[in-house]
């Protein structure tokens, strides 16, 4: 549940803030959200990834459709993606998603050092000497 809330929140906040902040808003929002909303590392990465991946690819697709492919087909050669507009859309989504995911993961890691978990379960079990750990 938290995962889906995080996706929605990320999408909504990026959408609103992108009017004022350049592209790296997609790294900032997940970073901040993951500080305040506790999830594990994988969730903070994927919630951000999915939110921005969808946001970017949908917006790019709308432009692609409205402009009748005029620029997309040309840019898919410039970049160079063999002129395939679909790949360009995917790359756009993926770059956005990945950088957002990394932002989320970093936020999560930051949370973990800020809010030092009071007692780690593993710690409770006591210290296992290094040479016995993987037995």
């Amino acid at each position: 549940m938290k995962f889906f809330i995080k996706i929605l929140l990320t999408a909504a906040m990026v959408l609103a803030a992108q009017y004022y902040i350049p592209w790296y808003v997609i790294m900032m929002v997940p970073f901040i959200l993951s500080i305040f909303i506790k999830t594990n590392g994988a969730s903070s990465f994927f919630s951000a990834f999915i939110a921005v991946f969808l946001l970017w690819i949908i917006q790019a697709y709308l432009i692609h459709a409205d402009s009748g492919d005029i620029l997309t087909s040309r840019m898919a050669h410039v970049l160079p993606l063999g002129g395939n507009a679909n790949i360009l859309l995917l790359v756009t989504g993926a770059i956005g998603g990945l950088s957002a995911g990394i932002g989320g993961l970093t936020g999560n890691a930051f949370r973990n050092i800020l809010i030092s978990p009071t007692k780690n379960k593993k710690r409770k079990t006591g210290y296992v000497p290094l040479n016995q750990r993987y037995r």
Partner: protein
Amino acid sequence: MRRFLWFILLAGLSAGVFHVLQFGIGSIPPAGKLLNPYSGFWSNAESSKLKIKDKLSIPGLFEEVTVVYDDRMVPHIFANNEHDLYFAQGYITASHRLWQMEFQTHFAAGRVSEIVGEKTLNLDRMQRRKGLMYAAELTVEAFESDTLANQILQSYSDGVNAFISSLTYKTLPIEYKLLNYQPEPWSKLKSALLLKYMADMLTGKSNDIELSNAVALLGEEITELIYPDFPDTLNDPIVPVGTTFSQSSARLDTPQTVGIHQRFNVTPEKTSDNIGSNNWAVAGAKTKSGAPILCNDPHLQLNLPSIWYEIQLAMPSHNVYGVSLPGSPAVIIGFNNYIAWGVTNGTQDVKDWYKVVFKDQTRNEYLFDGEWKPVTKRVEEIRIKGKKPFADTVLFTHYGTITYEEGLSDDTSAYHLAYAWVGLEPSNELMSFYHLNSARNYDEYVNAIKTFQCPGQNFVFASGSGDIAIWQQGKFPLKWPKQGKYVMDGSSSVYQWQQYIPQSENPHVLNPSRNFVSSANQHPTDSAYPFYYNGFFEHYRNRRINERLTLMTNITIEDMMGLQNDNFNQQASECLPLMLRLLSSQHHQSAYINTLSQWNYVNDANSEAAAVFETWYYCLDTLIWDELYVEGKMTETPLEFTTIRIMHKYPTHAVFDIKQTTDKKETLNDLINQSFEKAMQLLDAWKQKNNKPLTWYAYKSTSVQHLARIMPFSITEIEIGGNKRIVNACDSRWGPSWRMIVSMENPIRAYGVYPGGQSGNPGSHYYTTGIEKWSKGEYFELHFMNNASDVRQGMITQTLQAIKP
């Protein structure tokens, strides 16, 4: 601790990802900025439906301005005063063409490396050594000494800057995003750089160095034979043969020797062979409507965004329509309610080269008339993207910059070459166009153009009142015979230009009895003209145009469209019969010969024979001039016209001997057969490689290329015929850059087309609007509006509102 290290690791990764996506690496653009669909390149994709805001508020306008966009997005600007007219021209032009405007001036100033990196360093060094910046600075001084010119340029510049300051990353032209840089403020200097870039290109056929090299290689006799000043046969000049000229009373100091015949180990950078233009005007006596018709098509490099921007500029005192150069105010080629005008390049040589002698290796002083004169040194810092700047010292003498140099000043083979160029003299060509925009009759036209200095142009003219005229206008040095044909001694004033041809003696024609005037870069006069000149002149298009115009009567606009798109290959008609006759019978079975022998000499797009002929002629030409290709090409291939004259007159001349084969003395006969075999190989190889039928257009492969050579933003293999030396002068990279036809009826009827579109944005549906019609020889009707409410279907009106800054 592990959490902390994990965070540090991720923070480092985030920073790395941010850095790469924000700044890019090397030539890889910043992907985050670029791909962001809310402001990156996606934002440059425009809807297929033209979206134009009803109202724009622009600080800097005095009053309200109305802009009507037609269905091709041509802006028709209606202003109440001159300031607002040129301000709006700057603003609107920049809104469609800003990147191109700035890139062209960066190119002229030798600043491309700061955008694209080290690969263009040599290009930039060359531009600096040509001294175009110096020429532009002189032009700005000339602008500023003329109140009116200064006001017009300032208004235009302010308009461009108003647009630039409205930009955000989202609205930045796509090239800035891809190459990752920002536009600078516009300035009068940038407009001047654009005009000097055009002037340099249009006077860029100077061949003094090549001809000096040719004399050193082949001797003076052969050089004069293959590079004659005048052809030995009728050349159909601009001023009809037989016109009497007043005799010159000029007295010039003439030296003993005409030039220096030394090998200069340099292949000068030159304008294409196919630079040129056609224009003509026919009198009402020859037209169906009874009103004169004026036509013009300048042949320039085919680029996107197009070199031309179509525009209508109207204010209470005048109303003009035509094409402008993005970066310069006013209409350059066009018409108003009273007159129409057009230009072709006047190709008299106005750039002469001098060998400069320095006192010693410090190069602080150079010899001139027995005295040592000081050299001015200017350190040019060339910024390079991703690298440290490169500093180059450019030397100035009173001629201009030292452009080419080799060796130190005390070697015998050393040289330092400077050029004298009319374009380096203060002048104000812009004002000629400004005055033409509002000219109403022949006298006003002559007054407008008479201060025009460089590049020399053939200004064709027609008026609603029935006059037709043409003037070759420019500032032309008055030369002693052969002056400036070869590199000259820079240490003596006798080799300098001493005077100029009086403006009133420039070649001109008004209402001739043949009822038409025309120019196609040919000789302006026959040899009866009292002044010596040399240059790079056309010999085919001019004759074809004049022959057709002489025959035509009851001319319609459609007839003129046909002539502008005429693909008749006059050159082939004058040499192919000879080539076929001398071809040995063993080749007569070839399918290529079968094709050629049935050919009508028309270079249509789908002609196979045209491709065969052009290939064969190319191979023949290369074989004939083998003697010029030794050790890199430091000479120039003679004109096809001259070559063909020699083929007809002297088929056993020494020029046909192949230098490599010392045991045999070849004649034209041998070369024709050898070249045919070579041509067959080339054509067979082409067919095998491309796996499609041989057609002229596919073989020639005309492309309209993006200015920064971003190939996906270019259009390639366009289905169009023609070639250089043909009226429809379209080769692979150069061609008719704007075809215009104006019938001076009341109301005026005008048609035009250019190989590009109004928008410079590859993401716009108006980026390539005209290319298809252009290639098919079709035209758009030009909507010359009487006033802002003269709106037709499909037009959109926009109001530019003045706001106080």
